[in-house]
Each structure stands twice: as C-alpha cells, then as structure tokens.
C-alpha cells in the first residue's frame, strides 16, 4: 500500500470512526440490549437490566467530564440526587401523577445543568487535588441540605407518584428509558471524543497550561463538559428515583455512588468511550447481587478491594490494556508504525522504536 493510500485510509478511518468490525459489534450489542426483556422477562432479570443501564449512562456521563478532562469528580452524586429530588418535588407540588410524570424528566436534566454552572465556576479554578476535595465538600453540603430542608422531606425523603402498572411488566418501560439514556450518553461521549471540543478537553488533561497557551479556552471547555455531564446525570437520577419510587438523603446522595462510578470508568478505561460501559456492566450487577444477598457491608469491602486490585493490575483499564494486547498480537514481527516519510532528506536518523506509552 502506498504512503498516500495508507494516509487516506487512516483519514477515512478517523472520519468514519467506526470500521467494519467495530460497527458490527455495536449493532450486535444494541440488538441484544433491545431484545433482552423479551428473552428474559422476569422482573428479577429486568431489574438487573435497569440498574445496569442506569449506571452505564451515569458512568459514561461522568467520563465525559472526568475521563476526558482528567479532573476527577467525587461529587457527581450531587447531580444524581438533585435530579431525583427535582422530579419528586415537581411531581408533588404540581400534582402530577401516573405517566405524566415522565414528561417532567427533562426538568431534572435542566436542574443538573443549572447546578453544574456555579459548581463548576468555583471548582474548576483550582488544582486537581483541590478540585476533588471541593467536589466532596459540595457533595456533603447537598446531602446536608436534603436532610435539613423541609421541602425535601427531611430524613424521610420523598416518594414518587404511583404508577398503576402490573408487577410482571412494570420494569420494562423503565428498562427502555434507561436504555435510551445509556445510548444517548454513549453517543454523546463518542461524538465528543471525535470532535474538536473533545480534543481540547484531552489536551487540557495532558497539559492545561500549554493548551491554554495555544489558545484553548480552558475554563469554557471544562465548564461545558461539566454541565453536559451534570445534565445527563441529573436526568438519570430522576429515572432512578421514579423506578425505585423513593429517595432519601443517604440514598440520593450516597457517598459510595461516586466511588462506584469512578471504579467503573477506571476499570473499563478512563477516557475511552467503551470503557465506562464495560466497567458498569461488570460492576453494577455485581453490586446489586451483593446488596441483595449479603448484608451491605461486605460489598463495601469488596468494592474497595476491587478498586485496589484494578489500580495495581490494570492501571490503564481493561479496554486500553486489552487493546494494546491485541495490537501486540497482530503486529508481532513488524514495526507497528511505518518508517518516517522521506520528504526531508535529512530525516531524523534515530531509530524509531515504539516505546511503551507512558501510563
């Protein structure tokens, strides 16, 4: 293959984003997800499905901000819980019941976005260490507010309006809504990653000062990602609330929430599109199983341990590590990167080893 052809193919690949194999894989997965409730309609199975998809959406949304920008947020529960409470409060105060409640869902996305703006403006001005701490602090503030304000129902929390659906098929609409949220979040993540906006985010992650020196409006970029992430998380929080039919301060603003999400994204591969999906699909059903079948505390120990194992064994996440492994298998024996173009007669004469990318 000539140099030109190879370049064109690479360019096409980048533009298209999905080569044959990948595209096929996505379609298959989507098809599987769509027929899952038909294949196994038992409420137990679809319950797993709903939760798994909820967390796929949340992990992807979290990754859109934290994975791409490198600013680890431990406060996304703020959006999740706020979305839940927004739905509960509006349904209660505007006397909306039944299916009409679904129409209120977008409000939770808006709530998430609105909260993200001041939150981000304050938090994104500081170093990464301090950013994480601020997100933790804001999280606790919100949990405290949920406990202490009367309109949030105090420690009793809120109940969702009743849905007069049969028990056998109750889960299914929620399943498909959660699926829609998940697909939406993943698609958004994918679009962002391919876009100039995503490029700027990732440049910020690598070297923020250099990036802003080159004209990237760091604050604007970070804040936009934060708002998008917050909006999606808020929306999903509302879906979760409606499904569960209740929310209280410790469940809506759960300290374990963010660590679970971080673990999902991290295990799968921070900053990749499919990583958080994989991570969520692995961890969430596991957590659900443990909570149902053991007393709650073992799951804490396991969650923490799993995280440590992941950090020590697959520090870059499953998808990147797996991808590299596959690449190594398929390129064994020849240079993975073509020799430098001979356009300049005095091209660098140093050998061109493909060094292991720095972690």
């Amino acid at each position, binding site marked *: 293959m000539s140099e030109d052809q190879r370049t064109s193919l690479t360019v096409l690949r980048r533009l298209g984003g999905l080569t044959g194999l990948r595209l096929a894989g996505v379609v298959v997965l989507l098809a599987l997800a769509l027929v899952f409730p038909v294949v196994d309609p038992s409420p137990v199975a679809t319950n797993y499905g709903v939760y798994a998809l909820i967390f796929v959406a949340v992990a992807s949304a979290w990754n859109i901000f934290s994975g791409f920008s*490198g600013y680890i947020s431990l406060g996304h529960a703020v959006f999740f819980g706020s979305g839940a409470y927004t739905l509960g409060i509006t349904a209660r105060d505007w006397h909306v019941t039944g299916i009409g409640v679904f129409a209120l869902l977008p409000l939770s996305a808006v709530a998430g976005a609105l909260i993200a703006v001041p939150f981000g403006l304050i938090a994104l001005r500081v170093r990464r260490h301090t950013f994480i701490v601020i997100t933790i602090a804001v999280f606790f503030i919100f949990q405290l507010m949920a406990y202490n304000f009367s309109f949030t129902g105090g420690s009793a929390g809120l109940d969702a309006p009743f849905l007069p659906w049969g028990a056998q098929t109750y889960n299914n609409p929620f399943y498909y809504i959660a699926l829609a949220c998940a697909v939406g979040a993943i698609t958004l993540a994918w679009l962002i990653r391919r876009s100039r906006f995503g490029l700027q985010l990732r440049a910020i992650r690598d070297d923020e000062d250099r990036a802003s020196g080159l004209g990237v409006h760091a604050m604007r970029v970070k804040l936009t990602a934060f708002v998008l992430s917050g909006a999606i998380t808020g929306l999903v929080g509302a879906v979760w609330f409606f499904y569960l039919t209740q929310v209280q301060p410790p469940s809506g603003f759960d300290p374990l929430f963010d660590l679970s999400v971080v673990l999902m994204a991290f295990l799968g591969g921070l900053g990749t599109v499919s990583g958080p999906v994989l991570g969520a699909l692995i961890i969430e059903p596991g957590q659900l199983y443990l909570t149902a079948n053991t007393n709650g505390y073992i799951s804490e120990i396991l969650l923490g341990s799993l995280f440590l194992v992941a950090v020590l064994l697959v520090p870059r996440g499953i998808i990147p590590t797996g991808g590299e492994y596959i690449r190594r298998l398929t390129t064994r024996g020849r240079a993975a990167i073509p020799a430098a173009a001979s356009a300049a007669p005095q091209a660098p004469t140093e050998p061109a080893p493909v060094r292991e990318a720095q972690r």
Partner: protein
Amino acid sequence: MAREIYQAIVDGILVGGVYALMAVGLTLIFGVLDIINIAQGIMVILGAYLSYELAARLHIDLFLGLLITVPAMFVIGVVIEWAFIRPLRGRERVSMTLLVSYAVALIIEGILYEAFGADDRQLNASYVTSSVHVFGFYLPYIYLYGFALALALVAALYVLLYRTKFGRSVRATMQDETAARLVGINISRVAAITYGIGVAVTAAGGMVYGATNAFTPNSGYDLISRLLAIIILGGLGSIGGALVASVFMLTLESLVDIWQPNWAIVVFYAALVLVLVIRPTGFFGRKAVRAQ
C-alpha cells in the same frame, strides 16, 4: 448570652486542639507524599475502636492504651503505604492515590462494621464525664488532657522535623523530591515512615475523639470532610496552618452551633469554598503553582 459565647469559644479552642492532632498528620502526609489521604477519617475511627477494645477487654486506661495503639497504627500505616501507595506511578498519580486511599478507607470501614456492628460506641473513663469549674466555665477534663496531648504531640513532631536528621530528610523531600534523592535521601523510607507517623498521630486523636463523641464506622465521613477543609484552609503541607485552621474552624462551628445546630457543620464547607475562591492556596499554603 455573652457567657454562652465565651463558653463556645473555649470549647472551640479545646476541641480544635484535638482536631489539630488529626489534621497535622494529614497535612504532613500531603507535604511529603503529595497525596490527600482520604483514609485519615476512618483511621481516627479505627484508633477509637482500638482504644475501646483495650479499655473494654483489658481494662487499660485510655491514655496508657495509646502506648499500644499509636505504634500499632504506625505499623498499619507503613504497611498500607508500602502495599498500595508506593506502587502507583505515572501521570495520574495524584488522582490515583486519592482514590486508592478512598478505597482503603472503604475496606477498613467495612471491616469495622463486620467486627463491631453499627451501634454507637463511646469511650469512657472517670475523667471523661467530669470537668473542672474555672472562672465560671466548664472545662471537661478529657478535653484538657486531650488538648495537652495535642500540644505535646505537635511539639514532638516539631522536634522531630526540625531537630533530627530524619526530620531534615522529611523537610528536604517536602521541598524538592528530586533534589532530596540526589543527596542520597531514601525517599521510599521517608514516605513510608511519614505516612506511618501521620496515621499514628490519628490514634491519639481517635482516642480523644472517641471519648468525646459517640461513634460508629460511619463517622469517618463527617471527620474527613472536616479535616480536609481544615488542611486546605491552613494550606496543604503547612503544619502551623493546620493548627491555626483547626482551632479557628472549630471555634467558628461552636459559635454557629449556638444559633443553628443543624447547619453548624456547613461553616466548614462554606469557609472552604470561600477561601478557595479568594485565596486558592489557603492561609499558609506553599504550593502556589497552578499547573497540575
């Protein structure tokens, strides 16, 4: 009313001393290892449980028990650092160590739940419930002893840092890790020992905390949020700053508690956010560099 305010201030100072103990360890760990040790909160609780067991089963006096719990926590700290923190490398090291310490905290919390259950505990001794009556103020003995202990330990830390060879290594590492390596300082050893010290100090803090508060394994969250606020306010890495910030914040909370008990804790978060907006390096913060 004035009486209440003065009492609140006195309470705040005394309690602040105790929090200083825990905060100083946390900021020291940050200064040397460049990590925010989220596990510090649960370490305090662990220390409290250890003291509790010693007192309940072996009837060892709380303060004497420290002779056992402090070295024990030191060892635990060194092991954790060696096993989970040292192996972390690479660009994302800062965030990773924070998450790792969060994971460790979670594991310890789970273990504590399994071992001790979710009921409230509180440490007890004759001096816990009695106080001395001075100038019309009530000064609980436990707080006085705790404050004295805090002063003693912080003084000991200062001596360690400024008068010993090891302390010089620690300070050198805090300033410039590469340079310290170049002059032959064993960074790994310094890191492990510092982490151990930071955690060991919390054993003492844990004992006093456990004597003055009812605690469960869940109490770690509340603690760590306060400690984080304190060390950021005081400036990451500054021991003097941690001291000042502890006393200041606890006094502030104590005052707010007079009017709005439910919201008193918010002063921590609100102050934190405010300071970070106005002066991102805290009161005495040294690392003013914005990048990464």
